[in-house]
Each structure stands twice: as C-alpha cells, then as structure tokens.
C-alpha cells in the first residue's frame, strides 16, 4: 500500500520522526549527565601538579578532540567484538562475550560512551578556562580566611567559574544536540535516520525528501528552548560582579 498524498503521509512521518527524536533527546541528556561531571574530573587532571598525570590527561584530550567523533563511535562500537574478543579468546582459551550486542540498547550504550567521553574532553577545557579565569586574589582571600583547598574550590571558585563558562558551554551544548545525528553511523536510529528512511521507502512511503528536511524543525525548536534557557541562566547569575 503506497501513501501518495501529503495528508496521508504526514501522520505516519511525524510518528516516525517523534520516535527518532526521543532517541536523539535520550542520547543528548545521557551525554550531558555523564559529560558535565566527567569533564570537571578531566579538567582537574589537566591542571594537576603531577606532571605525569597532566601529560597523560592532555594527551587523551588531544586524541579525543583531535580525531573525528564519527571514527570514535565506530571504534567504540566495533572494536570490542571485532578485535578484543578474538584476542581474549585466543589468550584465555575459552569464549567470552564482551561485545555491545546488536540490539538497540547495545548501540545506544556504545554511542553514549563515545559521546560522554568526547564531550567531557571539550567541557574540561572550558572548565579549565573558567577556573583559571577566576582572579587569583579570590583564592588568596580564601586562604587568608583559613579555608581548605576544597572549601576554596566549592565555596569560592566554582560559582564564579559557572558564571564565566555559560556562553561557551551553551555553544558546545547546542552543537551536541546536532552532533547526536552522527550516531547513525553505528545504526542508532535517531531522527535523521528516521527521516532518511522515507527516501528509500518505509511504511508505504518512498522517494520522499521532505521528512528528512522536516527533521530540522525539531532541532530548531529544541535549540530555541535551550537558547532561552541559557539566556535566563546567564541573567540569573548576573547578581554578582567580579
């Protein structure tokens, strides 16, 4: 059965795009949830007093920021089953199963790991800039008051850092919304995948380009909400000046 008129196609397409967009949003929020704290940990590593640790962390940040996310997705998804598993089986002599699994959950988990790690590295550099941008006098004031290092960080530096990094973080987070579409390289069925399916034919609709173009409306709407949210947050934190 072929659906030929726009009014027949529209509800089917919207239904499919909604399902895809839920995947997009899931990946977006899971990435934020993981990458925001992990980025802070990595930024501490790259500011560490230990030169060895600092070198290792900076090298990792260089590799992750310097190579395409699409390649990282493919390596993280295919490497365990393709290389690691046969290798372990040879070494151990019995069969192990460390692949991600072919189903939707395996693909999602692999994509989330790749995105969290990748974005945490970008975030870490923004955090580092924010932390190092807080005037040294603020820390010295804390020391004079007899605060410990962690007290100085959480009570003095952190909030001032947050205030400083909102514009660059907003940039990165809006990019993340759109970058989630890269996950379709490991066949995670996010919204672009859902829109593309109607090009070759799915659910009685084939040869249609408009569903793919229509996905942009979803991205625009969601990024509009984020933009408003960040503007509000920025204003909210405007009550103190440094």
């Amino acid at each position: 059965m072929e659906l030929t008129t726009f009014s027949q196609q529209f509800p089917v397409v919207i239904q499919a795009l909604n399902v895809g967009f839920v995947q997009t949003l899931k990946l977006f929020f899971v990435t934020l949830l993981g990458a925001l704290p992990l980025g802070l940990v990595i930024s501490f590593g790259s500011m560490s007093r230990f030169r060895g640790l600092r070198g290792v962390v900076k090298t990792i940040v260089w590799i992750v920021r310097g190579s395409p996310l699409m390649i990282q997705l493919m390596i993280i998804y295919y490497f365990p089953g393709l290389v690691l598993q046969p290798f372990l089986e040879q070494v151990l002599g019995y069969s192990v199963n460390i692949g991600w699994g072919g189903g939707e959950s395996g693909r999602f988990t692999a994509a989330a790991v790749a995105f969290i790690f990748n974005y945490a590295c970008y975030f870490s550099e923004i955090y580092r800039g924010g932390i190092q941008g807080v005037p040294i006098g603020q820390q010295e004031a804390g020391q004079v008051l007899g605060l410990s290092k962690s007290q100085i960080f959480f009570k003095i530096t952190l909030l001032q850092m947050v205030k400083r990094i909102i514009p660059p973080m907003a940039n990165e987070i809006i990019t993340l919304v759109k970058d989630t579409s890269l996950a379709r390289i490991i066949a995670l069925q996010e919204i672009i995948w859902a829109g593309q399916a109607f090009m070759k034919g799915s659910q009685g609709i084939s040869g249609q380009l408009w569903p793919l173009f229509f996905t942009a409306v979803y991205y625009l709407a969601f990024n509009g909400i984020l933009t408003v949210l960040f503007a509000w947050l920025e204003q909210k934190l405007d009550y103190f000046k440094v």
Partner: protein
Amino acid sequence: MKKWIASAIAVWMLALSLTGCGGKEVAQATSDMEYVKGKGTLVVGITDFAPMDYKDAQGEWIGFDADLAKAFAESLGVEAEFVEIDWDNKVPELDGKTIDCVWNGMTLTDEVRSAMSCTNAYCNNAQVVIVPADQAANYQTAENCKELNFAVEAGSAGKAQADANGFSYTEVKDQATALMEVAAGTCDAAIIDSLMAAAMVGEGTGYADLTYTVALNSEEYGVGFRKGSDLTEALNTFFADALADGTMMKLAETYGVQAAVISE
C-alpha cells in the same frame, strides 16, 4: 616517586574505562549454530529494503527475506531478531557478532564471498538503468546510455557495472540516494537492483516519473554468515526444503518476486 605511582594508577584506570569492563563468560561455544541456539535469537542484519525487508503499518518487519528468515529461525528453534545496520558496515557487524547473518537481498559479489560464508543463490537480480520515464525511449541500450551522468551506490554492484560499461558516474551513499539524484535532476540516470526498481519506480510508487530500461548484467542474491559458520549449510538445506514443499514460492508470490526465485 609518589607522583609516578599516581600517574601509573591514572593510566591504568583510564585504560580500564576505555576497554569497558564486564566480560561476562558464556559457555564454550564450539560452532556458530550452538552459539545462536545458546542465546535463543538469530540476529538478522538488514536495511529497509522493499520488497525484501521492510516494515508494515504496525512496524513489524515483513518482506520476502524477512519472512524466510523468520521461518528459518523457527526451524532452528530460535527467534529471529531484525536489526537495521549501515550497509557499509555489514562485515564488521557480522565479525563483531552484533549480527549473526546478513539477509537483505545481498548480491553475491567476489568481495562478499571472500568476506563471509555465503549460501547458495536463492534469487536472481540484475543491475538496471533508471531514467526519467519521458526519456526512456532514448536509452534502451547500454551504448545509448554512455552520454548520461550516472549516480551509483558506493561499493555496489551497480558501480561495478558503471565501470565495466565506461559510464561517467558519481558515487552516492546508497541506492535510495541514487534514485533521489535522478528525481531531483542532479544526475541523469542511476543504476540499481532490478528487484528494488520493480518495487520502487513507476506508476503508483513514490517515483512515478522514473522508469527502468536496460539490464546491464544478471546476478544472484545470497545470505551471508560469519566465515566458517555451520549455519550456511543449515540454510542451504532449509532453502532446498522450502522450495520442494512450495513454501518459498508461496512467499515469493506474496511479495511479487516469484519471477526472480531460483527454482532448481
């Protein structure tokens, strides 16, 4: 000294987090058949490809290949699970055990045969030239098509035919994109599978203004398993039985591909 210990621990932890933990053991699987039976599912790697594998209005995978795959899985006593893959990545998906077979109107080329363990051919196919219907009369032979600018799927059998015939072409992501290029007028013609062409272009389809003309070759479809898999033989036997008792032809008629089924 202390900072070296700290660095070493950091490296070790990062290595752990990179490799991903949780290596759960499975019983020693001696063959692919036992592996599939052990986990109870046959994971079939597909793309959305009418009339072989596509979704019905309820979102259920149907099609000539999908229905055969379900029947084959049933004969093994396992469940067929369909997973959409990126066609370019079919070999790593198979070898990485994220899927157990590629069963999606796959043309048996030398590349496919060398990368997978393939069954006997079960369906005939051809690479056909797609042109706008109003120009079809001018392009009924391969010779006439030489002046056209083609769109072909990267790494496909269609691209091999374009090379063999000396056509000028642009490589695109998949056959659907190739069709789209012709419909949008960005390319003059495309080369795609005849089974797909029969289902997707012409009257009553999404590409009513396109049609297909010359068949450039003839080729065959097969199913791919991991190299050395014993499931290949099992499926060959299953195909022979399904042909003998008529179930294969009945399925083929449901999806309008009976003319293409290889019946000896």
